[in-house]
């Protein structure tokens, strides 16, 4: 098994674990973390496309690699917006959750 295939399969496994955490974790920040894990798995799968695209004179295809670099920065920007939304949501209500049922329940008076 070549290093690139191994890295690709690692990426596939990471997508699986990320998806599992994204669905199951009730805490929104944990969901965000799992989503980032999933994203890095996708980047890794794309990375082996870059490695396989190697032609004479170069060990990799620079185009997918450049796109992964752009992707990492955009993923961070999106995470920052998600964090800001989560913090504001929690500050405005008494719940740190995305569960819609919690929101429809009558308020127990602990909120401001």
């Amino acid at each position, binding site marked *: 098994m070549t*290093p690139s295939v*191994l*890295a*690709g*399969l*690692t990426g*596939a496994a*990471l*997508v*699986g*674990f*990320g*998806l*599992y955490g994204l669905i*199951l*974790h*009730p*805490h929104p*920040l*944990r969901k*965000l*973390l*799992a989503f*980032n*894990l999933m994203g*890095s798995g996708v980047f890794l*799968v794309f990375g*082996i496309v*870059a*490695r396989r*695209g*190697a*032609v004479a*004179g*170069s060990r*990799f*295809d*620079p*185009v997918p690699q*450049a*796109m*992964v*670099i752009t992707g*990492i*920065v*955009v993923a*961070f*920007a*999106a*995470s920052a*917006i998600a*964090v*800001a*939304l989560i*913090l*504001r949501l*929690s500050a405005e209500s008494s*719940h*740190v*959750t995305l569960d819609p049922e919690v929101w429809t329940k009558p308020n127990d008076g602990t909120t401001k």
Partner: protein
Amino acid sequence: MSLLPILDVVLASLVIGVAIFTISARELFASVVGYVAYGLLLAFVWIRLYAPDVALTEAAVGSGVTGVLLITAGKRLGALKNAAPEAQPGFAFKLLTAVLAALVASALGAVILMLPDPPPSLAPEAAAAADGAGAGLGNPITAVLMSYRSLDTMLEKIVLILAVVGVWSVGADKAWGKAPAPLRQQKPYAPMVFLAQMLAPVGALIAIHIFWTGANAPGGAFQGGALLAAMWMVTMMARLADPPRIDSQWLRLALVAGPAVFLISGLAGAVVAGAFFAYPPSLAKPIILFIEAFMVLSIAAALPMLVAGPPSERPD
């Protein structure tokens, strides 16, 4: 040579092991620490894929700055002290999710094992385009980012500004124009202050070196900018500097400088060299370095602002 395949397997199992820890850890803080370690290990995988530029970006942005963002967010959430009791999902739901995740992962794995042969590649095209512009850049990644796919890179800078605008917009109306809350509420420890005082000048120098060397060797505007951003965040964590007011002119100028210079150079290329984002061959390398210098400035301003979050009503 027989050692490398073993190292690859060990590295892959370490990455997966730390990923599992990140998902399964009980505490948010432990999970974030796991994620930072995971990002650093992933950087080694990228090096094994002959992608040192991606490795640098993953280590700096993917693991470092994202880690600071999540730890800061966790602390601010903890300060709210109103976490609702978390409902744990049932066993059947867990099993179903596990099956779904396994299915997706195996489908992806199958695709990877069945990738077309010979593989498609844009490398010759990219090399031709980079040479055609006479860029004279030794680093093919920088050539792609700044010449072959320069429009993508510029739009990505605009995405960063949009993200900053998005984060600022989430703040309360009354707080508009004020500074974001400090990254650290308590008085910092003396070792933290010492670290920031020692590290920041050295780190800033290394950041500029990484940007400058990026034309010919692994490195570049993203990596250098992220490192510079990290140094600013270290000084903010030590409370040597507090986040600036979001209505300050210099901050907004620094944020838009990168994309603005990039766009103006692109438009100038349309007049001088005959195509949008074309550079005159004899001047390509100086122009690219000039644009990149402003990109470093914008990245170094945008990343800490994204971490610092929306403006806060309290000055402290």
